[in-house]
């Protein structure tokens, strides 16, 4: 049994609502990429939706569970860019929180304003644990964001993406030869980007195989 299911129940939400949360606590650790910056929520207590988004980002399991118990619909909360709690769990690779969210029926194919799914988010940060989990629970391995970027395209932009590339390319449903809006396959991007490009050979059409219906 996962440890996400074992903590004691208290009214964490009530504590949270009145907690004095120090400034700067909500800044994510990934501010090296201006395009991907998540906004800082200076007042997460303002609504229960903002609270769950904050709690996920801070890896606060018991608070996440408490909030979900209070209002199950918060599993589909969205920030201003359209990121859901599951997106946030996945770009942070908080697998246990992602499991709790999926258990509460989080949409594995929810879209941000730019059309990113949680799988895109996991791949951007080479979070193979979350990528694997999402694929087991219904994530579309071929989902295209704005710009027709699949999770594999996003993976290919990461210099050392061996683990997520492995997870995606070994998935039986992947269409690895898909072109993005620059008419590039993920393999072409990988060749330009970094050290993991030999793995993208898996996506070559010479490796296509379908067993189909049995006799």
């Amino acid at each position: 049994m996962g440890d996400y299911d074992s903590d004691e129940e208290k009214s964490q939400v009530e504590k949270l609502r009145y907690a004095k949360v120090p400034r700067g606590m909500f800044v994510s650790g990934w501010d090296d990429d201006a395009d991907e910056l998540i906004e800082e929520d200076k007042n997460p207590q303002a609504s229960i939706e903002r609270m769950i988004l904050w709690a996920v980002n801070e890896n606060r399991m018991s608070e996440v569970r408490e909030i979900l118990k209070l209002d199950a619909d918060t599993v589909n909360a969205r920030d201003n860019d359209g990121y859901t709690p599951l997106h946030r769990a996945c770009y942070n690779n908080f697998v246990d929180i992602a499991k709790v969210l999926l258990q509460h029926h989080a949409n594995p194919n929810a879209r941000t304003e730019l059309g990113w799914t949680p799988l895109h988010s996991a791949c951007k940060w080479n979070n193979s644990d979350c990528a694997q989990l999402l694929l087991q629970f219904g994530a579309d391995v071929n989902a295209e964001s704005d710009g027709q970027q699949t999770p594999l395209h996003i993976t290919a932009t990461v210099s050392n993406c061996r683990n997520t590339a492995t997870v995606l390319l070994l998935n039986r449903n992947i269409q690895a030869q898909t072109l993005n809006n620059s008419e590039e396959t993920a393999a072409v991007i990988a060749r330009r980007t970094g050290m993991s490009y030999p793995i993208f050979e898996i996506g070559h059409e010479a490796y296509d195989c379908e067993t189909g219906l049995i006799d």
Partner: protein
Amino acid sequence: MMEWYIGNVWQDKTKGLSKKVMTLQFSSLDKPLPVSSVEFSVKKAPLNLGARPSKYLAVSGDGAQQLHSLTMGNATTPIDFYLELLLQQFLLGETSTCSIETKTGDIIEFQLKLERITSNQQVEKLTAAEIYDLALRYKTNGVAMFKDYPKFAFDYFIQAAKLLITYKPFDKLTKASNGIDGSEVEALFVQIQTNLAACLLQEKRYEHVIYHTDFVDTLENPSEKSVYRRAVAFYHLKEFEKAQRTIERVPNYEEKREFCKLRDNIATSWKNSDAHYKSVVQRMFS
């Protein structure tokens, strides 16, 4: 907590697979991965299985519920191969009605319960040595299935090749730091590609046979099988000169019946294609 999951349906129409959740004793949100071992029970014996072989679905004499242990990646019949794929869609504690549709429209139906996941490994976390062992197992199973179920053998070889590629470039692997030497991995990869070439010839995917047998041009002593399969592919692609040059990689090829037959076919087709070309030229310029 997981009430929404009851009645949930998973399908893979291309393979004719379907699964509907009947009950769930929820304990944790875990499903078996392609590298895992599980225990499952057959709750309802299969309908319409016919004479199709299966290690797990064969009906027991007294009709009692059967508990089975299964390690993924060991199936040697199509039914068991698809049973593994179905089980990978089960949550721990789930009972589901499963079905496998056949080419003739039969629906094989049975009910399974996933009782335990005894081990579950993320493939991207396996060491090079573990990947090698797994790829070798897939290759062995592929060889076992090749005669009766070539499509499934093909799938095993593809999965094996893909696994090895995750550790490319092979020349960086050493016994000391990776548990296996790159040359051993390379040798297995070449064997698997040679097997893939046989499958792809059956599928008439000649360009892909050429792709997988590129090593024939660079290896010092490529196997006869690999040379032959590459030459056959060139022959079907009407690249007769390349086909002939390829069979000449085997020094004593003229002593071998298969090679001689291929050489003769190449020669005849080459001549005919020349004659054909000449007649076209003649017509155009006469």
